[in-house]
């Protein structure tokens, strides 16, 4: 694979490259057939600037139809197990009316100038690509139809397509796409804005389960992942960082390491203090990873640990216990008069909840293969966020971004950890230092010790119920992390956190503790911790009110109403549609046999719901259906749910259509957001009934 030859863009005066429209170009493919190249709409990416089609530039995104009928489509986003490598081409294949069994998929390189956003994070891939990708497929189909109509000398309007074949209904003539591809290559590509999209009721590929394109390679053990990369002359490296975040090497016994069998290099790297960049450490390079890892056992480093050595989890917990009862440093939300309402309440309930820092622990340890030479870098990385890594490598090594090629390797798990690219810049730096291609591989301990952790948090709740058991006051003092009134990465709380706006007297406040530990998003960031704390406390309130846990929540949601979303620190928050949430909760209660389900000894059934994050801005969200992205077994009887929440992806035995059924969603041109970004979710789960060591989540998401 060769990176396209492109020149670095000059950012406009305001530092932003202005939006470019999508464009399309048709040409004859090498070996015959149609090559349809396209670039997607780009806003704000300054990395590179491909020449316009008129100037003969080569783009990286394409649909190729060869004379034998095979359709090859580039898939542009990082694959971390969410299925996007399969799903994005499905959007093109649908409108192309391709025979899916004849579709082949090529993984794209990282190049936002051609592909737009190439990130596995924020649940945005489907909303952002839903229409642009479909338009590319529709354009290709239109060209094939035109080619057939010219061959047959009939009006194009009399020609139809189905599954890779154009048919002229009046005469009964047919030609398959392979036979038409070379002719189609002589036809000018249509304006993407003007092409006709299918009526969703005619979808044959979107909304159907399709096997992951890499699954056959996975089950037979073919090389696929970042860790599987092998290059001629490649060396193997480990990189040892300070056990205390922000610490630096004073001295290391490099001579002893260099004397170890197989070791070719051992050197100190003087990094900076940016955790997702290059930090101080010792690199050991050997002719095999095992030799490097074994030499590491002899490594003795005198570390300058720095101020973070004074921080620990027990200290944070003790400090939080002191801060919790005090007035908060920040007011996040305030409605009514909580103090007065608590004073007049029949019952006042207090509870404190806490949760720890969590490592993502993706099963594939962090790794990256890099070859830096002659001012250029070629990188093979399992990353969720390649362009961010490109910028860090460019800045740290003093390279032009256009001289950096990044191959996105399949990731053995991401969960948000691989949004950061520290391992990428480490590999690039080591490769340049030794003048050879190198594969850097962290061990499991490195991975757990040098993560961007889901932040810990401490919640001090206080709430009041009136004599009828109705919630009249709710307060949370959230002890979190940050400085200067600014939350640490992913340690924040939105002012609209439920039950905000559903309780007449409501307060959210926060106090921040300084933190030297890197934090970051983990799975549905925020939600995974906040849902636990808030919904658990609401359960305690239901118990205190002597109400059924589901009924208490339904009463809290009240009559159906929609509260508009707001701009929060993490972007737009979704509309809160209480009627929809009620319906989800009622459905879950019904499907789980709530109140009727026989329970085993020492087991229970709990209910919870959560208004989760918004997949994209309301403006650009066209309510896409991710049913296209998820793969369900027809035989298993299980329904897949959102690929955006892989941790709770499956709903065994619940034929979950949800209150706004996904079946109807994909029949609508405005498919449900619930399947793409989960505007609102309800979860029911069995608790404490797992006899086996195998986790058996039993959940329903809608």
């Amino acid at each position, binding site marked *: 694979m060769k990176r396209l030859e492109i020149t670095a863009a000059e950012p406009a005066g305001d530092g932003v490259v202005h939006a470019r429209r999508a464009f399309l170009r048709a040409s004859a493919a090498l070996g015959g057939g149609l090559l349809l190249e396209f670039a997607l709409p780009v806003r704000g990416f300054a990395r590179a600037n491909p020449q316009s089609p008129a100037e003969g530039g080569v783009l990286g995104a394409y649909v190729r139809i060869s004379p034998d009928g095979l359709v090859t489509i580039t898939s542009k986003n990082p694959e*971390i*197990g*969410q*299925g996007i490598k399969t799903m994005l081409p499905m959007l093109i294949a649908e409108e192309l009316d391709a025979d899916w069994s004849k579709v082949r998929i090529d993984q794209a390189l990282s190049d936002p100038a051609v592909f737009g956003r190439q990130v596995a994070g924020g649940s945005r891939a489907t909303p952002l690509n839903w229409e642009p990708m479909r338009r590319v497929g529709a354009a290709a189909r239109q060209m094939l139809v035109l080619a057939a109509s010219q061959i047959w000398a009939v009006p194009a309007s009399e020609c139809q397509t189905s599954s890779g074949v154009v048919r002229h209904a009046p005469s009964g003539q047919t030609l398959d796409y392979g036979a038409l591809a070379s002719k189609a290559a002589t036809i000018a590509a249509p304006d993407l804005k003007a092409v006709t999209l299918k009526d969703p009721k005619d979808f044959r590929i979107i909304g159907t*389960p399709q*096997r*992951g394109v890499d*699954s*056959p390679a*996975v*089950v*037979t*053990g*073919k*090389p*696929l*992942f970042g*860790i*599987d990369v*092998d290059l001629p002359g490649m060396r*193997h490296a480990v990189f040892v960082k300070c056990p205390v975040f922000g610490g630096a090497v004073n001295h290391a016994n490099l001579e002893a390491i260099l004397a170890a069998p197989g070791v070719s290099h051992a050197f100190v790297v003087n990094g900076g203090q940016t955790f997702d960049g290059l930090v101080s450490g010792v690199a050991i390079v050997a002719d*095999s*990873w*095992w*030799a490097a890892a*074994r030499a590491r056992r002899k490594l003795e480093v005198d570390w300058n640990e720095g101020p973070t050595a004074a921080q620990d989890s027990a200290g944070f917990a003790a400090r939080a216990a002191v801060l919790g009862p005090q007035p908060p440093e920040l007011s996040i939300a305030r409605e009514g008069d909580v103090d007065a309402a608590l004073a007049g309440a029949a019952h006042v309930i207090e509870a404190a909840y806490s949760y720890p820092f969590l490592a993502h*622990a*993706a*099963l*594939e*340890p962090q790794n990256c293969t890099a070859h830096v030479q002659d001012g250029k870098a070629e990188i093979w990385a399992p990353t969720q966020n390649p362009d961010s890594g490109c910028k860090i490598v460019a800045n740290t090594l003093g390279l032009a971004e256009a001289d950096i090629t990044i191959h996105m390797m*399949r990731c*053995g*798990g*991401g969960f948000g950890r691989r949004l950061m690219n520290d391992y990428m810049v480490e590999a690039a730096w080591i490769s340049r230092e030794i003048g050879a291609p190198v594969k850097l*591989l962290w*061990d*499991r301990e490195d991975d757990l010790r040098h993560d961007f952790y889901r932040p810990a948090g401490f919640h001090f709740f206080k709430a009041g119920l009136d004599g009828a058991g109705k919630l009249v006051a709710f307060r949370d003092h959230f002890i979190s992390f940050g400085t200067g009134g600014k939350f640490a990465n992913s340690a924040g709380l939105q002012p609209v956190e439920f039950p905000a706006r559903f309780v007449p007297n409501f307060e959210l406040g926060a106090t921040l503790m300084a933190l030297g530990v890197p934090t970051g998003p983990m799975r549905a960031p925020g939600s995974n911790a906040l849902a636990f704390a808030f919904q658990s406390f609401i359960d305690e309130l239901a118990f205190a009110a002597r109400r059924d846990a589901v009924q208490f929540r339904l009463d809290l949601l009240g009559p159906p109403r929609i509260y508009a979303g707001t701009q929060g620190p993490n972007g737009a928050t979704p509309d809160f549609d209480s009627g929809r949430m009620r319906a989800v909760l009622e459905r879950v209660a019904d499907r789980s*046999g709530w109140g009727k*389900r*026989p329970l085993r000894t020492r087991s229970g059934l709990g209910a919870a719901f959560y208004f989760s994050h918004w997949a994209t801005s309301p403006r650009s969200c066209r309510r896409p259906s991710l049913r296209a992205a998820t*793969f369900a*077994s027809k*035989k*298993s*009887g*299980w329904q897949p749910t959102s690929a955006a929440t*892989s*941790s709770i*992806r*499956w709903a*065994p035995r619940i034929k979950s259509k949800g209150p706004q059924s996904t079946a109807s969603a994909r029949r609508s041109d405005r498919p449900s957001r619930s399947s793409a970004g989960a505007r609102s979710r309800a979860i029911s789960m*069995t608790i404490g009934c797992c006899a*086996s*060591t*195998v*986790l*058996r*989540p*039993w959940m329903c998401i809608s």
Partner: protein
Amino acid sequence: MKYSIHVNGAIKRVEADADTPLLWVLRDTLNLKGTKFACGTGMCGACTVHLNGAARRSCLISIANVGSGVVTTIEGIGDTPVGKKVQQAWLDIDVVQCGYCQAGQIMSAAALLATNTKPSDADIDHAMAGNICRCATYPRIRAAIKLAAGLPMIDAREADA
């Protein structure tokens, strides 16, 4: 040190230090990348191979201890009738999410079905307990094992709910 080991039906001559784990001989010397490194301490099952037909963690077996043992990896398991069936079931159910653990899962499942053609749920749990999937594909893994064994795919403990 020079060793001759029996891998996937062939004798392979390799040169490695005696303490080198079989995992790294497979991956970096024999270029069999299907067997995965994930914990290096036998706690996750990603590196599972068969040694004389039994599921073993290749990160814990040194090359010196392989001896004349017959090693089968994910690249070779499809040559056995049970392995082929398990791989096909994995595709039929489309078990794979990120896929990183699945070679190890398949090796453990194939070892189970080679000795127990009709495993109970408890048998499956016992055999698969050491294989971690961070994506939590466990329900599909169980279903695929049952499919490969020709068993009904309902989990008895879920059916009673």
